[in-house]
């Protein structure tokens, strides 16, 4: 058997978490070093896996780095891991963010042992979600994520942190309860827990326990809470705003993508016909997400809350791309997930730096900071421009693909109108991003911010890493789209073109 790449990538962080939690007498320094080491190696491994991933068209739809062991014979569950073109970019995204958030958290001094243990456990669970090909295993990782999030927000957060944490938990558990019912019905309709088998067997395998449409929507609710889709989005601004910086980065960067990933992997792949039938409804919701999210963002005065609401708007593009059900639009949606992960991750990291250094997060009270923190100002601007989709950034590549793909999709009638409405979101985005940058960095210098520091060496390392990734994908998107395409093509086959 070949080297178990995925198992190693997934479980290294949790090994680190256990070491950090249970080795007595670790100094704060050692804890941080351990966390960095145990997140760096998964990153290195996943980049290596990315390098040797077979991108040829012959490999389209082939699961690579597959591992399959019998896990619970009584219910036909397998320890089944594997990645294809759809999940590999997200694995890279999470392992990249996993390493960077350890650096972002370097200044944490409140209960560091617990903090890093939870952070690493969180990484394991999200990586597990993207790699699992067994529904039970998928759900297990999906659920584990809630506990670290609860603690991370409620202990290390700010503001109404306990309220936000429990709100997050209740929303997520509600979504996953629906999803569990869906998974159970799917299991008994097909007798299998393997995503691959169920997708291949198609609906022919389904004996009716209940209408297929109902199973589709049970699963969809679980993912829609996570993405989030209007009107299930209200947990997001609270959780993002009150979470500590690093957790906001993971939350916006990788956690939301679990929803989009699940929609493509389960809802679209297993129920192509149902997805087609209900695509108009979901595309409408996507447009509502884009416009409503952007409109609400315009009104925000809190730096983090503004970025949080912008996520809702940007996830609308993902939803639009998915349920336009065209090959280009699906590739675009997946690329948008990756791109938004890096861009919003950077935005939250920058917001965290501004808040930490200037000790102020109210946009009405900030201003003129470009003189005190030139580097932060430049990078924050780059991130903002990427978020509004400026060419040469990944944001442009992703949104362009989504719009082109949706506009030309033949599956949903009248999609052109929806796409044009969606494009309007870009205009609003430009509005709030530029307004935010102006409020924070420009204008007359304010006295109370004299002596505020710019980014230090460590901070420069991680923010430049973010920028490098954004530029790389923006200038040469094929580095990812080639991979993504191999994952999307078989789905197009299922949709029947």
């Amino acid at each position, binding site marked *: 058997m070949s080297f178990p790449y995925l198992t190693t990538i997934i479980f290294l962080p949790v090994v680190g978490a256990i070491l950090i939690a249970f080795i007595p007498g670790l100094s704060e320094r050692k804890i941080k070093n351990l966390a960095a080491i145990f997140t760096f190696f998964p990153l290195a491994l996943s980049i290596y896996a990315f390098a040797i991933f077979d991108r040829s068209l012959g490999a389209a739809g082939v699961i690579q780095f597959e591992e399959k062991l019998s896990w619970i014979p*009584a219910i036909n569950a397998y320890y089944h891991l594997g990645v294809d073109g759809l999940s590999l970019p997200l694995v890279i995204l999470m392992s990249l963010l996993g390493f960077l958030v350890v650096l972002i958290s370097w200044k944490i001094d409140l209960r560091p042992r617990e903090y890093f243990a939870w952070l690493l456990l969180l990484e394991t669970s999200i990586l597990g979600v993207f790699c699992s090909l067994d529904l039970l295993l998928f759900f297990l990782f999906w659920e584990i994520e809630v506990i670290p999030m609860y603690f991370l927000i409620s202990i290390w957060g700010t503001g109404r942190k306990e309220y936000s944490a429990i709100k997050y938990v209740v929303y997520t558990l509600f979504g996953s309860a629906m999803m*569990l019912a869906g998974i*159970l019905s799917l299991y008994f309709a097909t007798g299998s827990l393997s995503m691959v088998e169920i997708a291949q067997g198609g609906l022919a395998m389904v004996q009716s326990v209940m209408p297929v449409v109902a199973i589709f929507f049970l699963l969809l609710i679980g993912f829609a809470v996570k993405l989030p889709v209007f009107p299930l989005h209200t947990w997001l601004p609270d959780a993002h705003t009150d979470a500590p910086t690093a957790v906001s980065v993971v939350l916006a960067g990788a956690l939301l993508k679990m929803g989009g990933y699940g929609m493509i992997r389960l809802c679209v792949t297993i129920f192509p016909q149902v997805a087609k039938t209900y695509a108009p409804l979901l595309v409408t919701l996507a447009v509502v997400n884009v416009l409503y999210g952007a409109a609400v963002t315009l009104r925000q005065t809190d730096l983090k809350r503004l970025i949080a609401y912008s996520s809702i708007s940007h996830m609308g593009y993902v939803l639009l791309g998915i349920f336009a059900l065209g090959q280009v639009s699906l590739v675009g949606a997946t690329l948008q997930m990756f791109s938004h992960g890096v861009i919003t991750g950077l935005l939250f990291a920058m917001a965290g730096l501004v808040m930490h250094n200037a000790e102020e997060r109210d946009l009405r009270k900030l201003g003129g900071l470009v003189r005190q923190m030139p580097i932060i100002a430049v990078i924050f601007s780059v991130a903002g421009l990427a978020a509004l989709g400026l060419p040469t950034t990944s944001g442009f590549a992703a949104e362009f693909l989504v719009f082109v793909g949706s506009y030309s999709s033949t599956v949903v009638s009248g999609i052109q109108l929806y796409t044009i409405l969606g494009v309007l979101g870009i205009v609003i985005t430009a509005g709030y991003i530029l307004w935010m940058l102006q409020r924070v960095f420009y204008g007359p210098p304010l006295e109370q911010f004299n002596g505020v520091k710019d980014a230090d060496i460590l901070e420069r390392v991680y923010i430049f890493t973010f920028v490098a990734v954004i530029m790389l994908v923006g200038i040469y998107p094929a580095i990812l789209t080639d991979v993504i395409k191999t994952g999307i093509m078989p789905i197009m086959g299922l949709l029947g073109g």
Partner: protein
Amino acid sequence: MLNLELFTPELTLAAFAIVVILLDLIIQRKGWLVVVSLVGVVVAAGFTIAMWGGSSQAIFNNMLAVDNFALFFKLLFLAIAALVILASVDYVSRFSRFQGEYYALVLLSALGMMLMAATAELISIYVALELASISLYVLVGFLKDPKSTEAALKYLLLGAVASAVLLFGMALVFGFTGRTQLGEIARVIQALSLSGVLASPGLILGMVLMVAGFGFKIAAIPFHMWVPDVYEGAPTPITAYLSVASKAAGFAIILRVFYSAFGLPSWLSLDWGLIFAVLAAIGMTVGNIVAIPQTNIKRMLGYSSIAQAGYLMVGLATVGLSPAVDILGRSGLLFFLASYALTNLGAFTAIIAISNKLDSDLIQDYSGMGRRAPLLALALTLCLISLIGMPPAAGFMAKFYIFSGAVQHGLLWLVVIAVVNSVISAYYYLRVVKVMWLGEPASEEKVPSSGALRLALSLSCLGVLLLGIIPGYIMKLAELAAKMFVF
């Protein structure tokens, strides 16, 4: 032929119970009582394991069944008894008198429960049930303070009423079938036509009364009124014992009686299956909602155990609705019982350790426990997560397993109610977690715990994790045990 060798686990336990009482008279160092009781449990478990996998037999004129089903439960009860004894060490060492009686009664009630899992005949069911119950009545009142006494009295009175109802039900069933042996009852009922049964509604009434009588044991709504008061007043190790062993024994006997006596014809099993489905839906909803405002952690876990009984009854409903050859309902129930036992024992053991120091069971006093006793708090957190039914703890697998059986047999509506209930329950379980990890500690003083407590706690937590991550082996055991012996 008497086949006494098949009765050795029970005989061993009875003998050791007597030895413990006698030993108490002559030795000064009471620590030996714990050792002797544990040796008794281990020896009995050894005999039980030796019988595992053998062919199913009946002994004492078909009164007791020796099958994998009974052996599974016997092992479960012995494991619970051992953990309860370990968890009691600190608690009991503070008593000035009657330490021997305490351990002896724990052993005797374990003996009663073992018999409950094995009996296949109405009268011996009653005797076994009373043996288990009467020992527990005494144990509940062991503290002899007003709360404990009130709890014992309440438990005794309501228990007696439940026993009477049960007896009445048994009498009706006996009256209409003329048999007390479960297999023979089944044969008489199967010989009746549908109109024959409808012409004798007393049989159905008897069945319903038996549901009520057993419902008391498993704390099913509406027979749950005793639970919160008794859980609060009883010595905490006994609360733990009640919440897991007594409940498991109740489910064992219900499975045995309803599956082997009323399992066929299928319209009959459909009847009681639906009764349990409705009880399950009400039980989990009421239990979870009433648990939310509780301020005393033992009371909260009392209501939580009512809700958990609801989830377990989903399994019973599945058994009723599925054909007799289908074992998924039964094995799901057995697996859930095992995981619930470990989880709840773990939770109570942590509570014992904490309340030894605090002398309080109020949730608000757990404030800052994450800093005063990080490992205890971590263990309690794990157990509460398991009670919610979240991975990687045993509770998740148990729920998945039991619900998957229910979905298969058309109980999706019940499963949806159950998963929504799990979300509700997260609220009050996480409240305790929140207080422990986010609250400010009232003092910086560490919370000590004895070696025995730590052993019991680590065993249960290990079990919880094991069943949550690699449940395959225990599920296999549960499947083997689910093939019940009907004769």
